[in-house]
């Protein structure tokens, strides 16, 4: 019997996937990952999309050294 699950497909690179897996673990039992598809694809709940985008934005911003501190 074919089963259908509604959600959101996330296509990303490998580091981002690892970050999302960690995020998912940290938020237990409030997990958002429905299925780990492969190295670069995850299937998640729709409600988590904005949250993970915020978290990724934070991660990218943390990883970026602002060249203008010395003013």
């Amino acid at each position, binding site marked *: 019997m074919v089963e*259908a699950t509604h*959600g959101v497909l996330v296509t990303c690179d490998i580091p981002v996937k690892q970050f999302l897996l960690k995020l998912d673990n940290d938020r237990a039992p409030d997990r958002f990952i*429905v299925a780990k598809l492969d190295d670069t694809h995850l299937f998640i709940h729709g409600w988590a999309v904005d949250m993970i985008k915020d978290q990724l934005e934070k991660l990218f911003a943390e990883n970026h050294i602002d060249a203008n501190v010395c003013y």
Partner: protein
Amino acid sequence: MGRGAPPPPTASARARKAAELALQTELLHGTLFGDLSRYPPHLLDALYAACDHAAPAVLRALPPTARLYVVRLAHVPVHGGDDGGGLTPDTLRGWARPGLRAGEWHERAVAALKGLRVILQTVGKGGDVRLRLNPVVGRGLRAAMAGLTPAPFGVDPAAEAGGEWGGMKASIAAGGTYEDGGGGGGPLMPVEVLSDHARRRWEGILHFLVALSGSNPAAPSEAVVASLIRSRVLEESGEGATISSAGFQFLLKSGPAQLWVLLRDRDFLPTLAELGVVLLPGFAGSPAPRRGGEDLFYPTPVGVSLVGSAAASTTGGDAGEEVPGAGGSDVAATPRPAAEALLSTTSTGALAIVVENNYRVYAYTTSPFQMALLGLFVHIRYRMPNVAVGTLTRSRVTDALANGITAAQIIRFLNAHAHPRMKGGRVPPNVADQVALWAAEKGRVRTSPAVLLSGFAGVGGWAAVAAFAADLGAKLWEDREGLRLAIEADAYDEVRAFVRDQGIE
């Protein structure tokens, strides 16, 4: 098959996306000569015959290979011996140097020449194809090469040498008939006044686009704003107009290409005056001519450079992505004197930018517009009378990217205005790479509403559904081993109907 007759919602969404893309392409790559080649043949011939400047202007517009062919053909006797004159296509192909890409350039050149009716193709008695130069174009070219063509817009060469340009009867041009009578013969206007006027008007419009609400010494009128909205450079939103993402790309285009986008929408004199293409005495803020020149208009260098705009615009200019099919080497090989001429007229002394490898940007310019334009992707720290100092920051660049400017455009813009003293004349590689990386950040994660199908009984059923979803263009991800499939959420209803109708378990 379970495919319903009405188009699925995804298809219409895709069609809309395609239409938007086409519109963007149209806006970005629509050029004077691209439009010309869509004219019916008799109109094109009439144009070449009516205006002495048409042939040289078209010559400047052509790709370099085509330009070479035309210059050669101009001196090949049109009416040859018994075979009716002209060249066989093979002879023409023989002109191209044997090489990897020569064939491609040759094809492109011949296509452009035929499209603009510069080369005419005739089929002779024996069915042999002959190519020859359009005689009207040939005459115009030979005259131009011999220096017999009077200067455009009735500029009196003697007056030009003296630094003043003659006026033209406004009534004649407004009536739509172009009577080339050589010099204009009206009272003269100093060229500096004209360039200064043109620069202020044109920058006023561009400045308006960059800072819609900010103070603007030469804000455009309602008519121009309406035209900008019609050209989709501006979008109407809740409270007034906002700049569209295509508009941001418009800002980084070369001057002539920008001008053409606006000119396509309108052709009457007051608007041209508003755009700074011509100076119309008595029009808001225009300097008054000497006595006797009240009913004249004066073409400005911006207007004159429109005639020579094509070299810049057909090769993509400073605009967005490379035109598909236009070889990169062509772009590099084409000199762009017209674009440079316009840039130097529209920005008081060209904009010269130094980018240091610590992301610091020094922009030597006195134009508030240029500073505002830079402010789109550079965090301006301070401004001095002739220089703005700022930094390329991640937040500013990502904002610009969100507005539809691409990383390549930013780098190309900075390269195009590199300060002569800058090492290598290019943005330092680490800065260029970082901008590209900031852009790539946006693409690191893509999310799309989807439905995950699993639990297929056999690979046959899975393959049928996968093929059906691929046909719809709705397949996002597949896993043959695990018999799983992710499809677009919009297409779910159709796929479900297919699964039910086919009895797939």
